[in-house]
């Protein structure tokens, strides 16, 4: 808090100086408090990750990644779980992208601003806050019993798609709203239709934000357990789903969508709830893999954002 420099010296009055010194002290105090708070939060997080790593890292091996679950902890692995997670995420994205994007474009660009759309706005925001288990119950009634899709990959993908849809729509709408109105007006002024304006300008300009929102929503969904248990995930699957191809025409097969599924968090949940200590180590190792999957998805989101940012400048 030195007041030795030339400008400070020009503040002649003693009370002015004291007040300045007090303001600067307060500023420094806040900076230090903020630093400590940040440090606390970070260290708790690091401790959690560290514990997971210490416990599970020793169990991570090729065998662990390529084995099915087993009664013997040392022989058990997460092959069906990580393949299941990837397939469920794929289905979730395939369903959530067109629905989320379509809804966001309609609500932002086409929908008239009236009471009905305001009601829809509020409902989407509320849906984003509905507990995931409620989605699970609804999916059980609708997809499993009503549509008879079974306790399958398809059901799991659709359930998680419903779960991430509100977040996807909100993120996509934010991204669309961030497109400068001058770009829209430039297109309209040339006689473009609404769809041409959206297709040629609004979507390319907002795609970075839309994809980022989607990937972050998916990385939340990758850890979801409750709704998938509700729709009937199995925790012991010792086989892989059908391959997505077949020998005879049409050569692609959708049989795998109707196979029973499991995902990483469910495998972990199952192992943690067993009494034997060895299975807890397995759970920690699986947790580590799940964490890496989430981090990879977040890294992808950052990369996508950076790529689109580079292409677009205003």
């Amino acid at each position, binding site marked *: 808090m030195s007041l030795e420099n030339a400008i400070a010296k020009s503040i002649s009055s003693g009370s002015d100086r004291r007040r300045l010194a007090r303001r600067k002290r307060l500023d420094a105090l806040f900076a230090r408090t903020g630093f400590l708070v940040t440090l606390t939060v970070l260290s708790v997080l690091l401790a959690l990750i560290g514990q997971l790593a210490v416990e599970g890292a020793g169990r991570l091996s090729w065998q662990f990644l390529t084995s099915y679950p087993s009664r013997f902890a040392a022989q058990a692995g997460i092959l069906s779980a990580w393949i299941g997670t990837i397939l469920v995420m794929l289905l979730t994205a395939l369903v959530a992208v067109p629905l989320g994007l379509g809804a966001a474009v309609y609500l932002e660009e086409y929908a008239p601003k009236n009471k009905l759309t305001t009601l829809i706005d509020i409902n989407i925001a509320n849906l984003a806050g509905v507990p995931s288990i409620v989605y699970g119950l609804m999916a059980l009634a609708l997809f499993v019993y009503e549509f008879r899709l079974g306790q399958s990959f398809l059901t799991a993908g659709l359930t998680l798609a419903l779960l991430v849809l509100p977040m996807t729509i909100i993120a996509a709408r934010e991204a669309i709203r961030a497109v400068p109105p001058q770009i829209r007006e430039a297109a309209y*002024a*040339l006689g473009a239709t609404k769809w041409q304006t959206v297709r040629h300008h609004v979507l390319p300009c907002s795609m970075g934000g839309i994809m980022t929102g989607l990937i972050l929503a998916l990385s939340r969904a990758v850890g979801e357990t409750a709704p998938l248990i509700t729709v009937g995930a199995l925790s012991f699957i010792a086989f892989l789903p059908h391959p997505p191809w077949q020998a005879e025409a049409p050569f692609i097969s959708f049989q795998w969508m109707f196979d029973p599924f499991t995902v990483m968090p469910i495998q972990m949940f199952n192992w943690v709830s067993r009494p034997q200590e060895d299975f807890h180590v397995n759970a920690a190792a699986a947790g580590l893999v799940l964490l890496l999957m989430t981090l990879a998805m977040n890294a992808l989101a950052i990369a996508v954002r950076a790529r689109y940012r580079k292409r677009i400048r205003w």
Partner: protein
Amino acid sequence: MSTTTTPPTALKAESKDLSFFYGDVQALKTISLGLPDRHATALIGPSGCGKTTYLRCLNRMHDLYPGNRYEGELLLYPERINLVASEIDPIEIRMRIGMVFQRPNPFPKSIYENVAYGLRIRGGMKRTDLDHAVERALRDAALWPEVRDRLNDQAFNLSGGQQQRLCIARALATRPEILLFDEPTSALDPTATARIEELVNDLKQKVTIVIVTHNMQQAARVSDYTAFMYEGRLIECDRTDRIFTNPSNKLTEAYVTGRFG
């Protein structure tokens, strides 16, 4: 109130008692104004007088936002179409009336794609015809010599003045009958401004021009007719030289001599 002298030349467009509302707020009050064919008309007046609002009626830009309403007539000659009638599709109007905005707003695409865009969205054009149209528009906008070797460069790599001329080329490519300029030089330096003004002077041989400007010297330099607006009303419209040397309205005189605004 308004002492409008009808210009002696043929009109390209004419508003008759045109009023405009942003929701409940009336921004234009019964404006009757003729826009002479293949001449430049400048709209001047203090901020908030409605000159940009009037300009944006001509290509129905206001339709993009909810709650806006027109009253009266805005006729496009020779067909006498009422531009602000609700049964007239704004897209068809904008295909005939181009616009250049306050800040250069090129698309984040190549120079070529920017100029070609208006023609591309209409469809049905061969690549060679498109190439010719792009070159012609860039020549008309006095930009061709500077960009002929880098048509595939990003438009954002151009300077501000070049970007604005690119936007003019983009608007010219579709051969509009009227070209609207909304304070086109307010974001540009004096050199770039001079080039745009020169361009407007050339263009008015071929296309009807309406230019909004807050700069009275600019209105004097580029326009044949000047309309002075104040608080949503048209106060006076006359030949530019007369508005600036011998206006018939006291308010106009006070404004052009810099006593308010």
